């Protein structure tokens, strides 16, 4: 049987208006698509499949509106499309349970690290648990190397730490959008994909009692304690903090590549005493 690489996609509205006064969200169904992270996941799956001759299956848990989005995956080269019909707003553990039977057996299951609609990023972890396989979540770098069925990667840990991994399948991997750019579909595949069949599967009944998310807050990096700036009075300290008394002409305009620019910023911050 042909080996399988699986990808989990979530169809989300990429644009939405927000009323500045009421916070009411005005959806824009025409912008339905997937996040750059989900796109990167498909790209890694396609590259991995090219090396091994595997078929790429893309699975999405959602309503019928996801079918058009799944066909975009077919245009990029996915061989099989599956949609698991699930209640909108189902918790991550239920989404993972719905996806699991349709990605089981895949050497690697690729996911985006978080969906754009304020996702918690928990589905890949639940999925690995459902499948009982290894997980490599929050990948910042991926190197498929020459090895069949595995990869090396750098992943994000809490508190700004990093971890370098070597992963052999079966495993669930989630990657950030910057790791790869989804290839541009050929015209031929675009036209073919319009008719690509989407297999519709039913979701299993929810497990009871299901964990219940009561509230959710946006991600906030942990606060870091920094020594207060010098100054006897609060006003002096505020002035020091906002750099109002810094010598004029401290700013420099430089034109550099991203890496050199980052170095230059760090150097300048260190020189100005802003770094610990």
């Amino acid at each position, binding site marked *: 049987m042909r080996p399988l690489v699986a990808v989990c996609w979530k169809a989300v509205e990429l644009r939405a208006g927000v009323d500045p006064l009421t916070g009411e969200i005005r959806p824009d169904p*025409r912008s339905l698509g997937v996040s750059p992270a989900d796109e990167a996941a498909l790209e890694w799956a396609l590259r991995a499949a090219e090396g091994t001759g595997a078929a790429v299956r893309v699975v999405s848990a959602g309503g019928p509106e996801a079918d058009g989005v799944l066909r975009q995956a077919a245009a990029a080269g996915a061989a099989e499309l599956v949609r698991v019909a699930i209640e909108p707003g189902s918790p991550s553990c239920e989404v993972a349970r719905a996806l699991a039977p349709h990605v089981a057996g895949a050497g690697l299951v690729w996911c985006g690290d978080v969906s754009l609609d304020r996702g918690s990023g928990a589905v890949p972890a639940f999925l690995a648990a459902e499948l009982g396989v290894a997980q490599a979540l929050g990948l910042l770098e991926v190197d498929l190397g020459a090895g069949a069925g595995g990869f090396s990667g750098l992943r994000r840990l809490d508190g700004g730490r990093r971890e370098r991994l070597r992963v052999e399948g079966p495993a669930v991997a989630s990657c950030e959008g910057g790791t790869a750019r989804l290839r541009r*579909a050929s*015209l031929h595949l675009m036209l073919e994909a319009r008719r690509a069949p989407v297999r519709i599967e039913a979701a299993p009944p929810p497990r009871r009692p299901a964990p219940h998310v009561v509230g959710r807050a946006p991600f906030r990096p942990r606060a870091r304690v920094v020594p207060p700036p010098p100054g006897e009075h609060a006003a002096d300290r505020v002035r020091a903090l906002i750099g109002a008394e810094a010598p004029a002409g401290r700013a420099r305009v430089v034109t550099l590549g991203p890496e050199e620019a980052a170095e230059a910023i760090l150097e300048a911050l260190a020189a100005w005493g802003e770094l610990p």
Partner: protein
Amino acid sequence: MAERFDAVVVGAGPAGSMAALQLARAGRSVCLLERGPFPGSKNLYGGVVYARVLDGILPRWAEEAPLERFVTRRVTMVLTATQSLAVDFRSSAWGEAPYNGATALRPEFDAWLAAQAEAEGAVLVCSTTATGLLVDASGAVVGVRTDRPGGEIGAGVVVACDGVNALLAKEAGLAEAPDPSHYTLGVKQVLRLPEAEIERRFGLAPGEGADFEILGGTGEVPGGGFLYTNRDTLSVGVVLSLDGLSRSAVRPEEVLAGLTAHPAIAPLVDGGEVVEFGAHLIPEAGLEMMPRLAGDGILVAGDAAGMCLAAGIWLEGVNFAMASGSAAGEAAAEALVAGDTTRRGLAGYEARLSSGFVLADHRRLRHAPGLVLSERVQRRYPEMVCNLVEELFTVRNPAPKPGVVQMARRAARRSGVGLGDLLRDGWRAWRTFG
């Protein structure tokens, strides 16, 4: 060449969707290419669609198209920096079938129109740009190249509906190099206001809309403006002479800010939340800029063919685009049946346009763009008329009222308009609109 269709239509604006619809309805395989992620996503206009041209093609347009409001109030306004003069016309007949104009938002309207073409069998391919024409050894157009891998599409006929830049018509040698004086720049913002507030401010019943066409109000740049009511937004914008804009060194958004701050406009737009801002060129020179409409294997329609009618009191482009696209689709289908897609075989296109309103209106109003875009019509006459009306209604007691002719003379002098100018332009206006 991997892909082949009977026809390829480039651009899913009003012209392209209508061309694709007619080709598909005639049983032809047709690919409708759109560079944006969905039809209408790249398109910007003022806001009023005159859709009667759809009566015979999509008879249920008034119920099915995503329209915002039926225009029942039309205000023609003349503005100077501190004055305004308006002719305010209302017709409740326009709010009933067969309707006149309706405000619509292009992302919705264009997507709907393209969906009608798809429903007839056209294959819509979005996020795909036609980057050039495929030409055979004899020079005939035989398809298009796109920006996708393996992106060549062979076709018996290419219908170029790619809008004002008309890159395909130029590549086919049908259009001349562009002359900046033939174009204006439209700059527009969409402001959100509650539906009931719009109805209150503009004196409208639910579902009714207002259309304000403004001459002047654009400071030192010759041009005009518009203000349309959508369901819960307003579209307000300026249309500026490109030459005037580049000479003035004023930024277009400053001109628009000037219009929305004008005492006659500010209360109408006050408190609106900006939800959209954009700019787009308008081909305004009509017949003078029209390319050859057909070549071997290619037809040009809509703004790509300079078919927008910009004649001062009228700015109609969508209806001209829909009608020309429809005619192009019918003529292309006919040529495909006859097996002759040479320029001669496609001649039915121009014949259709000539027998309908598209070329008839352009021919009749051929001198309008020159007149309407002239400095006097854009700047001096609005000032003169406003000055005259101000004189007329200013009570200068204890001084007695001067005679009207004397007031008119004084107003003309203050605006730098001579009797000769008035007679000349009056004669031109008579020839153009009479």
